[in-house]
Each structure stands twice: as structure tokens, then as C-alpha cells.
């Protein structure tokens, strides 16, 4: 991600600007009351998860998933897939051929 925060974790010290920045990264529109509510609540949760610092993880490999199965491969054979009509069936806007989106090359689109 291109945007960065201050370097150190700030357990319980979340600012309003932090919340706005994270909401922007997540493409998540928040109203004023949510910004205020989340600033307190997320700060509280981040304060709590600071307990993990007490765990000695020196030399411990991270565990991404319980099964740790990797490189599950199959033959590259064509199988059943959705038809175009099916794929478009839930789209809010389409023209029976493509998904329709607002102009991408818009100056307001960052």
C-alpha cells in the first residue's frame, strides 16, 4: 500500500485522522458518528490486543492457516463455468455484455 502510518503501533491511541486514513484505504464511507464511534472502539480493541506483546514469539514461524497445505494443483483442463448471462445476473449495471462502471479516468478518482 502506498499510504503509511507513523512507525510505531499506538495501542489505544487511535486518532480521528487514523480512522479517516484507514477508511480511505478500505474504500469505506463512514458518517461523522461512525468516525467518532470507531475512534474510541477501535482504540480500545487495539489496546486490548497489545497483550500479544507478552507472548514470546522469538524464532516462531507464523502460521497462516491450520492445514498448511500448499501448492494444491490440478490438471489445467477446461471445466464448467458460468455463462455470460449468469455472471452478469447480479450486476447492478450491465449492458448484457459487460459490467458497467463509472468513468475510470476521472480526475476525482485519485
Amino acid at each position, binding site marked *: *500500500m502506498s*499510504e*503509511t*502510518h*507513523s*512507525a510505531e*503501533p499506538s495501542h489505544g491511541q487511535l486518532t480521528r485522522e487514523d*480512522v479517516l486514513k*484507514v*477508511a*480511505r*484505504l*478500505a*474504500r*469505506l*464511507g*463512514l*458518517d461523522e458518528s*461512525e468516525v467518532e*464511534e*470507531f475512534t474510541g*472502539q*477501535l482504540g480500545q*480493541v*487495539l489496546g*486490548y*490486543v497489545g*497483550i*500479544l*506483546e*507478552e*507472548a514470546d*514469539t522469538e524464532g*516462531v*514461524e*507464523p*502460521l*497462516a*492457516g*491450520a*492445514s498448511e*497445505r500448499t501448492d*494444491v494443483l*490440478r490438471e489445467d483442463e477446461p471445466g464448467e463455468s*458460468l455463462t455470460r448471462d*449468469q*455472471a452478469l*445476473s*447480479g*450486476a*447492478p449495471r450491465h449492458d448484457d455484455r459487460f*459490467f458497467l*462502471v*463509472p*468513468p*475510470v479516468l476521472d*480526475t*476525482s*478518482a*485519485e
Partner: protein
Amino acid sequence: MTACREPASVLIERLSNGETTSLELTEACLAEITSHDGAVGAFLHVAGDSARQAAESIDRRRAAGEPLGRLAGLPVAVKDVLVTRDQPTTCGSRMLEGWTPPYDAHTVEKLRDADAVLIGKTNMDEFAMGSTTENSAFGPTRTPWQLDCVAGGSSGGSAAAVSAGFAPLAVGSDTGGSIRQPASFCGVVGLKPSYGRVSRYGLVAYASSLDQVGPFARDVAGAAMLLEVLAGHDRRDGTSVDQPVPPYGQQLEKPVDGLRIGICPDHFGDGLDPEVREAVERALDIYRGLGADVQEIELPHSRFAVACYYLVAPSEASSNLARYDGIHYGRRTDDHDGLVEMYSNSRGAAFGTEVKRRIMLGTYALSAGYYDAYYLKAQKVRRLIQQDYSQAFADVDVIASPVAPTPAVRLGQLTDDPLQMYLADAYTISANLAGLPGVSIPAGFSQDGRPIGLQLLANAFTEDRLLRAAAMHERETDWHLATPTFAGDAC
């Protein structure tokens, strides 16, 4: 008593010997739903017509002597987190309101192959995020035992449906306790399988490394029967494990010889409701009476489990829920000025508060500067938690504990305090972090009539032994036979 409140195995027997028909059973369930679901709120969609048609078709095939699947004619309710090609799938969210998916989840295919009658889609916390079903955009589910209390969550609708006699079997999903905890609050059996035992294809993703689909039933035999149908390899889920599915139902009568039960003293500390403690201790006494060896074990990293989970799960959620972009399916707002604002405004308008909270938490934990301190640290602690269980299961067959610190809470009791709500998941989330199977079985009631469950966890891919251990307790008790009263006011 409604026919649908009988155990699934009894109903299968009656169907096969001609004492009842699938249409009769289906009508009985639909009648119960009509009478009581206004107060309970278990269903988001009742598929009355298609269920009747399926039932009639199965009855005709049975009359013609055709071979039938293992659940032939039995009504089954499905949590609205599994996609169904002929029923709407909302995940309890405005984001997907009105959407009918173009395909079936693997587990839904399995139910159809087994000739189950799909009676409807059940209520849930939005995108499975929550512990009370109060985060559903379409209203909460109440426990049929006390209508001013929650059914638990996130699979509250499926648990309540089985408890209320709306369906003899139901399917749920469990990411941090979302099958086991509502099973406890509703007085039914709920099982979370080992990670990889059941395909996640078509399970709308919350936290992919933790999510697992599993059964609800009125008794252990019903859970075993449904698990046998749901489990099995599916190449469309890369984490699905290619191991044969044991005939879980066949061995249930056989006790586990020399059963060794582990208990962790940390699980019985402050904050545990005395009535829950009493129920768990009574269950342990029952096991001792059957000759089981109950011994203390250590899970030294269990105190980190809630913190670990509430970094790992929201991080995966923030990534998984990025797919709701207002383009491919789901809701799009017209109120925007360009593409990026279209994303933000659509998501802002359609997601509820808890979903937003977890997306925010996960995005924060994964963002530059904080990744190592939060997400990576949580993954390392996750390995320590898994290692604790590996060591414990060298000495014991199952680990017994409460499912939740209290019986069902009142509506609104925890909604204003997310951290308190998260802390109530402490007993269930470790099984998801470590990939272990776990079951909640009825173990008593509070004085005011709310059910209390007992949790048993076992080593990965030992569901057969876990179910046999659960059946040992069930044979000695009659908690699972009690009928909910629909007491209290649906406020």
C-alpha cells in the same frame, strides 16, 4: 408435539418404513414456521413452494422404489451464508439483499444429492460477524427458550430453527464459535468440523483460514448423519482435505474405551457464570461415572486467543470483503462522483456497523507500518496456540470446557460494547485458530430456563471419536429431549 421436533434418525426411519411422507413432514415444519417464526426470527427466506415440490418428487421416487439419498425427504435449513442457485442469499446484509446466486455451494450440492428438502435460508449476523445474530440487517433471532434473549451467533437462525422444531437439521458455519455458541444458547447439538473436512466452495468468505461449515441437530446421531453428507474432498477448495469420510453414525453406540478428558483450569476462572460452571462440572461427573479419566492440562497461550483471533479474522475479512465493490453483484449507490467514491459510498451505505468495524480493524492491522506488530505477531501466536493443543492431545482424547461464559444474553445487552462481546468468544475461538473439531452438546439449563452447552474439542480429523464421546454423555442425560417453551415476550 410437531413431527419436525423428533430426532432426524427417527424421522428417516419413519420415512423409509412409510409411517410418514416427506410432504407431511415438510408441511409440519412449514406450519411451525408460520406459527412461531414471527417471534423467533430464524428464517430470512422460507422456500415453501420449492420445498413442497422437492418433497413430492422424493415421495414419488420412494413409492416407485427408486434409490434415494441418505437424507431423503428430510427438511434441512441452510444458513444464508451458503450460496443457493434457487433461493436468495443475503448473508444478513443489505449489500446482498435481493441477490440470487448463479450456483450452489458444494455443501448445498451435497444436500441436494442426499435428497434433503431445502426448506429455507436462516438468519445470521451480517457476513457471519457477531455472536448474537443482532448484527443481521433484517432483525435478530431469539432463542426459542426465552424470546427476550438472543439465539447466539453468528448461526443463530440455524440453531433456533432446529431448537424450535422448524427443521430437524440445519447447516451453519463457524469461524470463531458461530456454530457451537448458538447451539449452546438454543439447546441443540452443533459441530464445527476440522479445518479442511468440509469444502468451503460457495461459503461466502469471512475469514478463510478459520471458516468451516458444519451441522446442527437435535441429537448427536443427527449431527453425525449430516456431517457425513457435508464432509468430503472438493477440488474447488484448495484447503479441502482428501481423506475418506468415516461412517460417523455407525460407531456412536460404542463408548470411547478409557476416555481421557482434559480440562484447563484457566477455563474455570473469573467471569464464568456459576450456573454454567455447575453444568460443566456435572457433565464431567457423568463422564467420571462412565469410567473416564478427567485430568488437568495446560494451554499456556490460551489467554492470547481472543487477541490473536481479533487480528487474524478482521485482517482476512478486510481482504475478503473487498470484493463488494458495487460492480459485479450486490448494492451500488447512485450517490457518487466517480469510481472511487462509488466504491466508498456503496460500501458505506450497505454494510452494517460491525462489518465496518472489522474491516477497519483488519485494514489497520494489515497496513504499512503495522503489519509486523499486529498481523504477523498474531500469526506467530497462532502457531503457539496450535502447538499447545498438539501437546495436550498427546495426553487426552478430548478437552471439555464451557461453550460461552454465560447462557443466552438479553437482546441489546452487549451491542454497545464490542470488546466485551469479543471476550465472550474466549472458549470457542482457539479451535478455529488451531483447525480442531469441536462440538457443543446440551448439558443443562439455568434456573430461569436458558439452555447451557458443554464444549468438547478433539484433535484434527478425529470427529468420529469426538462424536462417540459426545454420545456417551447424551445417553446418560435427557437435556436434548426438552422442548422449548417460547417463553417471554418478543420485545
